[in-house]
């Protein structure tokens, strides 16, 4: 990649942190959503297991 691309015409310290922050928000959203679903599955499985042991 050419140097002018990375320097962004002298605005690199504003452009790249903006892009990095937006990408971090995208990554956080995906990670948090997957974690939320996994936690919900775990809680549901635990509740089902408890209900099964109660009825046994």
């Amino acid at each position, binding site marked *: 990649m050419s140097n002018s*691309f990375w320097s*962004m*015409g*002298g*605005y690199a310290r*504003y*452009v790249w*942190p*903006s*892009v990095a*922050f*937006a990408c971090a*928000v*995208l990554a*956080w*959203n*995906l990670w*948090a*959503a*997957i974690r*939320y*679903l996994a*936690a*919900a*599955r775990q*809680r*549901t*499985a635990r*509740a*089902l297991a408890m209900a099964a042991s109660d009825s046994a």
Partner: protein
Amino acid sequence: MWTWFYRLASPPSVYRVAAALTPWFLTLAAIVIGCGLIAGLAIAPPDYQQGDAFRIIYVHAPSAWLSLFAYTTMAVAGGIALIWRIKMGHAVAAATAPIGASFTLAALVTGSLWGRPMWGTYWAWDPRLTSELILLFLYVGVMALRPAFEDPSRGDRAAALLSIVGVVNVPIIKYSVVWWNSLHQAATVAKLGRPSMPGSMLWPLLTMFLGFMLFYGAVLCIRLRGEVLNRERQAVWVREAIKSR
């Protein structure tokens, strides 16, 4: 007449459709955002006034658009849940809130980084910036209000009411640059006439809009499945869904 709608909005149906759509939305979002970023950062020409600093628009504008879109979705879903008593409306609203809040924060941070070289300051109490900050507070309020009640259904109703009341802020954000003197530039894409942007700059921006919308769809589907499981833990179909994993 509305039977199909109620059937589609039933928890098992929502869970199944969301699971089926997620990989499609996610794959398409990755491709479209990747293409949009390359086009915006490397292919689009620099602006004649702002130089390369204008490239921040490719992450700032889609984030800001999504912050408004997610809030409107949350209010509409809350309204549907209150009026027609479709409980999945509350689930959609709850799943949307953290996504919208994070993109509002992204819009504020990237806007601030764009403001420094263009306006000489990271922050000004400008109508557009202030109303966007109020949007972030509204999101935080809605997220905090839902679990503040012991009875979850009361929490859902209170959050829906707050989101509906707060939706008045959406047109204020949109038209703040028209109604008041603002440091923020006027609309460049969503104008009644022609967009004030050349095509070479516009198509990467539209690509990023599409990519962010697809990403929103993917994350909403994942969160929605979690919401459905949390709300329907006692249902028989949930037992089957968990077993079949």
